[in-house]
């Protein structure tokens, strides 16, 4: 290690941490962190602006998977999509919020492991279908649910989508991250087989499923207590 590594650029990281912890507006925090990082690296202001601009244009493909389904979801919600999803799940007698999410986790993770990563997602699946179904499944057995408990389950629906995607996709051989790992190791003179990298991911993928599913089932069992506590808080 050479001693001339500059630690000043870490100021940007500090700005992000402090900003998020103190709950400033995240958009503003990120912009300030960017400018601070540039200044700490002794870049002139016009170059910092240019870098912000180039980066923002280069990454404009990121919001597309969120934006493109919006018109469909909006239209269908206007015509009762959530109501229909809720009625459907209410008709399944053995469905509980936790079990429903375990099933979703299983499908999401398995599909991702076969390279089908676009099966799911927060805009096309969680907001219009999975979250309302989870709420309906919980309400079916426990009646109307207070807002904090409702929010907790909705958050859990999104969390389940993320866990399923992340720990599934990385055991698919042709996935970008495996290519990235293999290429990087090869550049450093270490030969690996992509298939081995994919296979050695399987124990973690199974552990991720077991841990998250166990939490979902536990949350199911604690639902009556959670509701009672939230109600007590409300009347306080």
């Amino acid at each position, binding site marked *: 290690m050479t001693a001339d590594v500059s630690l000043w650029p870490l100021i940007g990281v500090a700005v992000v941490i402090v900003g998020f912890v103190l709950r400033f507006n995240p958009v503003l925090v990120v912009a300030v962190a960017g400018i601070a990082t540039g200044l700490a690296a002794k870049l002139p202001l016009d170059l*910092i602006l240019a870098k912000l601009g180039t980066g923002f244009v280069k990454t404009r493909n990121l919001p597309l998977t969120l934006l493109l389904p919006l018109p469909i979801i909006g239209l269908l919600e206007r015509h009762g999509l959530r109501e229909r999803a809720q009625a459907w799940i209410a008709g399944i007698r053995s469905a509980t919020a936790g079990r429903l999410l375990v099933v979703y986790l299983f499908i999401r993770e398995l599909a991702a492991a076969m390279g089908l990563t676009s099966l799911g997602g927060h805009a096309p699946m969680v907001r219009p279908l999975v979250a309302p179904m989870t709420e309906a499944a919980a309400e079916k057995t426990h009646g109307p649910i207070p807002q904090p408990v409702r929010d*907790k389950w909705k958050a859990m629906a999104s969390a389940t989508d*993320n866990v399923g995607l992340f*720990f599934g996709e990385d055991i698919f051989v042709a996935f970008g991250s495996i290519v990235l790992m293999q290429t990087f190791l090869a550049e450093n003179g270490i030969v690996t087989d992509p298939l081995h990298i994919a296979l050695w991911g399987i124990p973690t993928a199974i552990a991720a499923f077991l841990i998250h599913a166990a939490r979902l089932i536990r949350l199911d069992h604690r639902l009556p207590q959670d509701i009672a506590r939230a109600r007590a808080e409300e009347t306080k």
Partner: protein
Amino acid sequence: MTALLKLDQLFLLTGIALVIVAVLTWRDRSNPRRWSSGLFWALWAVIYLAGDLLPPMVSGLIVVMLAALGGLGGVSLGKHGTREPAERQTSATRLGNKLFLPILAITLLALVGTLTLKDVHIGSLLVAETKNITLISVGLGALVGLAAALWMTRETPMQALRESRRLLETMGPAVILPQMLATLGLLFTDAGVGKAVAHLTTSYIPVDNAFIAVAAYALGMALFTMVMGNAFAAFPVMTAGIGIPILLGMHHGNPAVMAAIGMFCGYCGTLMTPMAANFNIIPAALLELKDKNGVIRAQLPTALLLLAVNIVLLKLLMF
């Protein structure tokens, strides 16, 4: 080689939709900040419509303006002509399970397109740009799904845009966060944040103990990912810093195990950071959660337990 379907066409569509959203907002008298809110959507539209043509400095100024408008309360909610619950219930009963079809269309076409459109030619013309095949398929799925939804509900395309505006306004300025954070990540790389973090982690850790070295690699991957919001950025840095010289060089570990589980340690970090806005902050906005960090809070126990499991797995499987 030129292709029939290009990512640029999706940018164009998105840009036009955002312009219409901006105009709708400017005309919405129920919105207390309709001028600045409309400006926000219009500026974002400019990035999609003219991003490649603008000088980088000008795009940079747009980014700063977007951040200022979004960060200082310039973007507010208007009123939307939502329907009564009873009306929605009636059409839910009328349309039944058909309501699910357009959504399945997005998903299925996205899958089919990704799997089949690769290297398909009409004459010498490529059907879809190879490197953007997934996004183009998602776009095709969205267009077909939209056509189906319009036909089924007998609404106008304008209504679809009004509904998009309703959803965009619910999410608010957070919708530009993924792009802002990815940009910050690029700036971090240029400024040498990676080098600084690697320097800190590798300089102060007693790595001759295999278990400590493994734990340092795993925790380093998670922490670095939390800072950069992206495990792909963390992998080369941590692997060059600790992985190759110490885990492989000093302790003779199996490189495939190290890479596979190391990357997963990074993913545990992704579950715990607001920097991964696409996965953690946007869903909170999309689900209208009161707590903007609600999704991270829900993921925290899974991420921490799994990180511990990963450290044990690395130690057991690698040597």
